């Protein structure tokens, strides 16, 4: 692996309940469960490692309960983790494990080092604020204090995410699902973060709307050179957006590799099942 990574995850682990390591013995893909009968704890994710280069998109695929969203939330800082390291190139040149940061510094990373696009736009946006205002929140957090320049930048971002400028001053709560997701993308990209996490960004949207949003995301990833982690249960999304991916099952990575190769020739039975389901 190259040393040219923007985001690096090392042996990330999250256990719900008592963090008793005996829980590892009777959980995982071979045991067919993430819940330990021994300890009663849930091993939501364990020994998860990967890195993402600038301009690269990495997919994390698995069914619900596989631990993929846990991984994303641990990286984002929305959830605490039990063990492991998360490194960002922009934080002490990657020498710092951001999991060791105090909560305040951790939250501050979300201003310009790391953005998240959630499945539910309500998590990433304020619905009672205008589209422009939502972007202004990201910009003012990064120190922007010039009204005119904030307006220009917000307009530019909305234009780029294909939100009609006539709707810039409308409350996001009045927007359709697809439109909200475009605003969320605009907000996430406002401060040009080097890393972006996308959690099921098109799940829940109508197929035709989803296709448009996916197109947009692919273009944005290409244009911006951002390092992206795309979490999805849907191989079609992973295929369209990513070049490499990892497959998660019962909290562990069971297979990883180039997305094309994995789709062509999945090795692990669980990957085969997923691919089979996607092709059916």
């Amino acid at each position, binding site marked *: 692996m190259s040393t040219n990574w923007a985001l690096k995850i090392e042996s990330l682990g999250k256990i719900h309940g008592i963090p008793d390591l005996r829980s590892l013995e009777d959980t995982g893909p071979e045991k067919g469960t993430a819940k330990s009968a021994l300890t009663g704890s849930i091993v939501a994710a364990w020994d998860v490692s990967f890195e993402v280069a600038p301009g690269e998109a990495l997919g994390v695929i698995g069914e619900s309960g596989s631990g993929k969203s846990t991984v994303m939330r641990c990286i984002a800082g929305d959830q605490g983790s039990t063990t492991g390291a998360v490194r960002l190139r922009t934080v002490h040149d990657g020498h710092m494990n951001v999991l060791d940061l105090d909560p305040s510094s951790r939250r501050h990373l979300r201003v310009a080092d790391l953005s998240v696009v959630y499945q539910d736009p309500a998590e990433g946006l*304020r619905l009672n604020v*205008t589209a422009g205002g939502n972007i202004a*929140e990201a910009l003012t957090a990064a120190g922007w*204090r010039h*009204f005119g320049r*904030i307006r220009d930048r917000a307009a530019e971002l909305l234009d780029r995410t294909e939100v009609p400028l006539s709707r810039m*001053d409308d409350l996001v709560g009045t927007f359709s699902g697809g439109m909200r997701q475009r605003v969320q993308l605009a907000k996430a990209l406002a401060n040009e973060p080097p890393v972006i996490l996308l959690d099921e960004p098109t799940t829940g949207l109508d197929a035709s709307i989803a296709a448009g949003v996916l197109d947009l995301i692919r273009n944005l990833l290409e244009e911006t050179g951002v390092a992206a982690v795309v979490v999805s249960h849907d191989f079609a999304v992973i295929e369209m957006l990513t070049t490499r991916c990892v497959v998660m099952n019962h909290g562990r990575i069971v297979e990883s590799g180039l997305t094309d190769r994995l789709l062509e020739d999945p090795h692990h039975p669980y990957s085969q099942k997923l691919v089979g389901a996607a092709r059916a």
Partner: protein
Amino acid sequence: MNTPLLQEILGNASRTDTNLDGSSSFKAQTLNFGLLDEYSKREIRRAILTAVAVPGYQVPFGSREMPVARGWGSGGLQISLAIVGPDDVVKVIDQGDDEGVNAVNLRRLIVSSTGIPESTTPEDSTLIQTRHRIPEDPLDARHTLVLQVPVPEPLRGVERDMRELARMHAEADYARMWVSLYEDKVRNGVITRTTGYPCLVNSRYVIATTPIPRWDIPRLHQSEFLSLFGAGREKRIYAVPPHTDVEPLTFEDVPFEVEKTPGAKCRNCASNNTFLVEVLATDVRQSYWVCSDSDWCRRHRELSDSSSQGLMT
């Protein structure tokens, strides 16, 4: 009939009406200097010291119940009574007026429980307790300004959860405050914040400026005097020490505007560079403007009266 009862019926301006009333089974109360017991005063002074040391930070304190209702200056009164000394001269204003009913009541309490002299002129005063205004006269290092605060939390308009509010202040995370100003400007074309305009103190904490009008805000910036803010109901004290930056939150390209009505001037003293309030007449066309700082207005009227008399002789 015993004396306290008689006093209560006949009235006595110099007496504090804080004692419970009159059946003879009670001993007459002997009140401490400044009403509060010394332990309480010490605790409040400690909170004040913290507030001065960390400008703009809202220091929690064990606010006492005062002989005035919460929301009626109980926070300001606690500060005044905790810091007042026998050499102080007190001025109390409400809306800029020394004769406002609540100003009168608070001044009576301070004066009667301490025996210190009172004044209406800032020049003669050392301790100025105020609701909603800063006197027009320049204040200096001799003065301590005590402001009564109804709602000390400047961010409550954008966040209701107190746990989240504490976090926002701790991390100086004021983005949502800026968003609210952005939205205001987008929606209305102007910033519509009126009194209590949010200000950044010492480049660190955002405070609610009581509700003093925007007119008074520039007076807090790099002032010569100490400003102490007391919120009794919400149990918070904060401070703007002398020579401290106080910047109203506003965009670089949207100038901060104070209250101004073109052509308005005080009917009594003819001033047009003081904070004016409108006196409504039944026929609104007959309405006129007067200074809200009644003492300033009185002195300037006398000044202009005597100078015009000088001209005549």
